[in-house]
């Protein structure tokens, strides 16, 4: 145990000495990793927001089921609600009385309709129905429309569907860029560690001669790669932690329209902080593992 602790101490010392010895290379690598992590952070923020936007757009995806005029007494409405809830693919149904319907119409189309308040109200009672799966909304609407007592069943329809499609595409493109940027940082760190291994070939061969274990030879390089990755991720992490709250304030917490609410600052900072630091460390560790297993010959 004590021996292992000593070995770990020496590994950390050797990693730091190694980094100090070729600090220009380490710095230039960390700087390029910084740039990739900065972009990665940007794409990550995009993905997180797109997810949130499409979720809230999906939340708005509900079917407006308008009942026939004669469905008026509470018993008939209760029966209607039961029928709707029994329809395949329905998650929830919220009643909207004819007065509520009129208020919604006034809200949407203007005060001109205010004249219909009271006895004059020509609208029927309705339900807002939420499907279990957003994708099946069309089929559910058709099923609801065929129920007795239902005059019509419509939903926000294609425009929301199209928007969700676009948002999903943006999400996948961002994912693609994130993967590319991760691979780029991997490559940059891999090259740095490879150079470090080359410049320390004689040291490695002496280590072998005196009986150093393979892990003793490899661990400093792994630590070095991980530290470079962390170093490169730290600054972008701080950058976003300080700039996101400013952006949030400036945009009043939404992306132009209330439907697109931005992610709260604390939540965003935690996500971006952990994601960038762990991605940096992972890229560093994976890259150095690759370099070490390829360039430190496993010869006797």
């Amino acid at each position, binding site marked *: 145990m*004590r*021996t292992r602790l000593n*070995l770990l101490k020496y590994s950390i010392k050797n990693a730091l000495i190694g980094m100090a010895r070729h600090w220009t290379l380490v710095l230039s690598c960390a700087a390029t990793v910084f740039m990739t992590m900065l972009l990665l952070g940007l794409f990550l923020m995009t993905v997180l927001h797109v997810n949130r936007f499409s979720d809230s757009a999906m939340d708005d995806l509900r079917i407006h089921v308008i009942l026939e005029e004669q469905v008026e007494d509470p018993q008939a409405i209760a029966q209607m609600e039961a029928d709707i809830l029994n329809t395949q693919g329905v998650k929830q149904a919220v009643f909207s009385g004819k007065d509520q319907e009129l208020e919604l119409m006034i809200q949407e189309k203007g005060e001109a309709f205010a004249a219909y308040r009271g006895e004059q109200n020509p609208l029927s009672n309705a339900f807002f129905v939420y499907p279990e799966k957003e994708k099946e909304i069309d089929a559910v609407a058709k099923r609801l429309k065929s129920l007795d007592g239902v005059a019509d069943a419509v939903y926000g329809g294609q425009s929301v569907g199209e928007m969700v499609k676009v948002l999903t595409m943006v999400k996948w493109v961002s994912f693609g860029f994130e993967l590319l940027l991760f691979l780029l940082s991997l490559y940059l760190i891999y090259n740095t560690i490879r150079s470090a291994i080359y410049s320390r070939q004689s*040291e490695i061969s*002496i280590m072998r001669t*005196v*009986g*150093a*274990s393979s892990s003793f030879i490899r661990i400093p390089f792994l630590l070095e790669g991980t530290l470079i990755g962390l170093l490169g991720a730290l600054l972008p992490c701080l950058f976003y932690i300080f700039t996101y709250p400013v952006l949030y304030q400036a945009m009043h917490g939404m992306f132009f329209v209330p439907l697109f609410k931005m992610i709260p600052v604390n939540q965003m900072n935690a996500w971006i902080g952990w994601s960038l630091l762990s991605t940096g460390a992972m890229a560093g560790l994976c890259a150095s593992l690759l370099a070490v297993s390829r360039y430190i010959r496993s010869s*006797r």
Partner: protein
Amino acid sequence: MIDLKQVSKSYPKGIHALTGLDLHIDDGEFVYVIGATGSGKSTLVKILNAEEIPDSGSVIVDGVDVGHLKHRKVPKYRRNIGCIFQDYRLLPSLTVYENIAFAMEAVGASKKEIKKRVAEVLELVDLKEKAYSYPDELSGGQQQRVTIARAIVNQPKVLIADEPTGNLDPEKSREIMSLLEKINETLKTTIIMVTHDSAIVDEYKKRTIMLDAGFMVHDFAKGGYKSL
């Protein structure tokens, strides 16, 4: 201690480096291995150091079957074998103290143990006052003494010296020989020294083994180049 039976080793392109070598070396012996270039000396060193695996035969060093040693067990085995090279192989960016300490760090010794043991070996190789010098500030003889200190710091049972006087003038060569004799006598370390230096072999007479084209052609207990 060291027991080689019918050891053969060949390299690609049909080069037979060693052929049917039988050799027994007792604990605490000091043995020269001599022979022309290509006689198999280096292959013998590499086999003893577990760098190479023999094609056939058995190699037993201190009870360890070196030829069948598992890959992961090689580092531990090597801690029992000290190596000295003609070109010293010191790390230029480390001081004398650090170069020697490096060998102990690599096997997980504590700082306290390192401090104590490095001081002991510096005393033994008479380089106490050069502890904080860098290799390029030392003469060839002094550098070779640092290499010897590094090789013995982990108290190996066997010391393999590959042409340790090859780069030194006769006077410095004698210094190194005296040091190796001292280590052999005081620490009872078995020493196998590969050399071309006939003057040294004649002056410091030890058991001498001569290799030629992979065969052992002489094993002379009294030693000396001239008597071969």
